[in-house]
């Protein structure tokens, strides 16, 4: 009956526990046992599932030599799920057989047994009192690390023998440099890194056992006098670089003079207009043509075609006399080549543009005839006189007999447009000639001392008429007569004489005029054409 009741009770229990999900505890496992000094040790276990019920754990151990089973004397000192064996309960060189049991209302569960010999589970505490100091050995600094064994480990009696290991790294690095110190409690580090903060850690291990944890980090800052050596190297390197630069600069500076001494430069050609590029190309025709294209003969800087030309101004007589006078001055200044003749300028003799060989040659070829050129010659003369140079015309000028009398001037054969500077003071001047015309005037005869017979001649023969008369200096034209006469004033060498009028004789030629000289004036005579100029 009772058995039936008990069985029923058990069945109910099982059924209810299954219905609620309750179960016996899971299997615990012993995780580790450790001894810090080979005198005591602690074992920890990991509980399994508790099965939903409050579970208690118990540790049982048996020693090697006896069959007695003992229970853990201390469950609290080592923390939760631990068992602490004090000195009295610890035997060295004895095999412990340890088992943990988990028990709840529904059952219990045994863990796997573990054999433990305390000698082989020693893991000491980290070393203590790690101190760092910088010391010097013949000027070279090194780091001295000292430490003390963990407090609990008894190394003084020889019970435990510890070997030490330390590691060091700089603040910015990630890798440690490890050194084995053996059994000594002092270590010197000579391989000091650059200045900065350095971290040191020490740990220890018994003969056969486990390494301790690393000690707390000790810090020390290396002094900066390591840079003294580096800075010395930097100074040396800088000095060497400077010397090298100086040598290089000197070589560079001297290289030019050396080059000049050894390899003097070839002087280049200095022919104006000489193109070196063409020379390099090797086309001689181009070179010479280039030379020819340049100005030759070299003129002044202001060489201008216009300079060779005589400016022409339109001249109207007499109102334009002043303009002519002005223009004549321009001619003087412009006509550089003929300055000698027209230097005493304000006479009316001057070389015209036809005197210039290079220019207007074609235009100045024709002589002019007086008798038939009255009307036609004038426009022709005028045409000739006209120089189309920049559109400027210039008054035709007339050569004076002084020009004609000079055989040196070869251009007398041609019609010359001389500048006339007629200073005609003709109160009674009634003539209103339109223009001057250009023609040659020659002295035909000298009637009296003061009377000169002028005649034009044609330049056909191209030769100046042989002088059949004495040269006389003639002064200015006194006046122009109404009947196409020209009044010349003879120049008297001394003093001035009264201008005596001389009658000019008419000759067959219309243009011939006989004039009588008057009181000469200083200067020379420019004869002007007496013919009225045809207007056009």
């Amino acid at each position, binding site marked *: 009956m009772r058995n039936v009741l008990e069985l029923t009770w058990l069945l109910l229990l099982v059924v209810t526990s299954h219905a609620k999900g309750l179960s016996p505890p899971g299997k615990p496992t012993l995780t580790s046992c450790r001894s810090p000094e080979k005198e005591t040790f602690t074992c920890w276990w990991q509980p399994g599932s508790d099965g939903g019920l409050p579970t208690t754990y118990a540790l049982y151990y048996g020693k090697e030599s006896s069959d007695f089973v003992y229970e853990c004397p201390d469950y609290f000192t080592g923390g939760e799920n631990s068992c602490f064996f004090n000195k009295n309960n610890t035997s060295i060189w004895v095999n412990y057989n340890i088992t943990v049991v988990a028990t709840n209302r529904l059952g219990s569960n045994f863990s796997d047994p573990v054999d433990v010999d305390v000698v082989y589970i020693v893991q000491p505490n980290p070393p203590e009192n790690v101190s760092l100091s910088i010391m010097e050995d013949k000027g070279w600094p090194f780091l001295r690390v000292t430490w003390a064994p963990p407090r609990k480990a*008894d190394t*003084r009696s020889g*019970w435990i023998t510890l070997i030490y290991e330390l590691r060091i790294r700089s603040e910015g690095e990630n890798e440690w440099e490890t050194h084995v110190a053996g059994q000594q409690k002092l270590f010197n580090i000579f391989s000091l890194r650059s200045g900065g903060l350095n971290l040191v850690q020490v740990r220890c291990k018994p003969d056969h056992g486990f390494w301790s944890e690393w000690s707390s980090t000790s810090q020390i800052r290396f002094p900066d006098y390591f840079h003294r050596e580096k800075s010395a190297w930097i100074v040396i390197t800088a000095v060497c670089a400077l010397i090298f630069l100086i040598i290089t600069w000197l070589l560079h500076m001297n290289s030019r003079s050396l080059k000049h001494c050894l390899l003097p430069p070839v002087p280049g050609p200095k022919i104006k207009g000489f193109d070196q590029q063409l020379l390099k190309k090797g086309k001689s025709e181009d070179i010479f043509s280039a030379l020819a294209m340049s100005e030759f003969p070299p003129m002044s800087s202001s060489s201008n075609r216009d300079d060779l030309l005589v400016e022409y101004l339109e001249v109207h007589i007499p109102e334009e006399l002043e303009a002519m006078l002005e223009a004549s001055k321009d001619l003087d200044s412009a006509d550089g080549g003929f300055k000698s003749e027209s230097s005493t300028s304000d006479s009316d003799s001057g070389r015209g543009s036809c005197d210039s060989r290079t220019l207007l040659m074609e235009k100045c070829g024709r002589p002019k005839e007086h008798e038939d050129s009255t009307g036609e010659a004038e426009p022709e003369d005028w045409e000739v006189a006209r120089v189309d140079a920049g559109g400027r015309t210039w008054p035709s000028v007339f050569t004076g007999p002084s020009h004609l009398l000079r055989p040196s001037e070869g251009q007398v054969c041609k019609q010359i447009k001389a500048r006339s500077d007629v200073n005609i003071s003709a109160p009674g001047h009634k003539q209103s000639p339109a223009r001057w015309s250009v023609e040659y005037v020659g002295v035909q005869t000298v009637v009296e001392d003061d009377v000169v017979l002028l005649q034009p001649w044609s330049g056909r023969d191209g030769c100046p008429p042989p002088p059949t008369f004495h040269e006389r200096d003639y002064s200015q034209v006194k006046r122009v007569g109404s009947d196409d006469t020209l009044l010349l004033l003879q120049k008297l060498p001394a003093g001035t004489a009264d201008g005596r009028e001389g009658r000019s004789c008419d000759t067959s030629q219309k243009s011939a005029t006989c004039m009588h000289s008057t009181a000469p004036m200083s200067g020379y005579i420019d004869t002007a054409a007496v013919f009225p100029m045809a207007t056009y």
Partner: protein
Amino acid sequence: MPRNITSVWVLLASITLGSRPANVAAAPICANGQARCRVVSLANLFDRVIQHSARMHGISNDLHSEFEQYFVPSRNHIGRVSRNCHTSALLTPNGKENAQRIAREELTEVILKLLLAWRDPLWHFHQITAHQHDLANFSSDKALEMSDMVHELRKGVEKVAQKMQTLGMISNSVSALSSPEDLLPSESGEWRLMKDHELLYCFRRDSDKIQNYLKILKCRIVPEHGC
């Protein structure tokens, strides 16, 4: 000609054998009142002995690890080593306090007893490994070396004990020196029942004991030298 060669070989052998004790000094160590001998300090002796025991323990550790590969622990055993070591009968201090509490002479005796107890088993073990071809060659070499080292270590510890007695640090009551054969346990054949791996396991532990006891002894007698 063959005589000369043999004489040369003898000379070479003597030179090599003479250099085996690894004594650096030219003069021999004073052992039996010789003339012109070099006196070795007790601390130096202790250091030598401790070094020797450390090397012995290292070899035993290697051999044990090696045998672990071949031995697959059976799950049926509650604990791997169910059997006690043959030296478990010896009363050895199992803690620091115990080791510091007993007299120096006892400690010295314990060391000597341990060393003596392992003389025969290791020799036997060496014989076994030499004849077993499935084991690696260096195992038999290490077994031989281990056996030799136990023998030499015992001699060294005896010397240390004598030195200590001479210096008056310990009394003359060390019985191990007088009659070593009496120290052997009565069940001297017990060790033959051990398997190889168990033997190695036990020896590894005992060699660690020897080393530890020597260190404690040194720091009790000559503490100023590296303790």
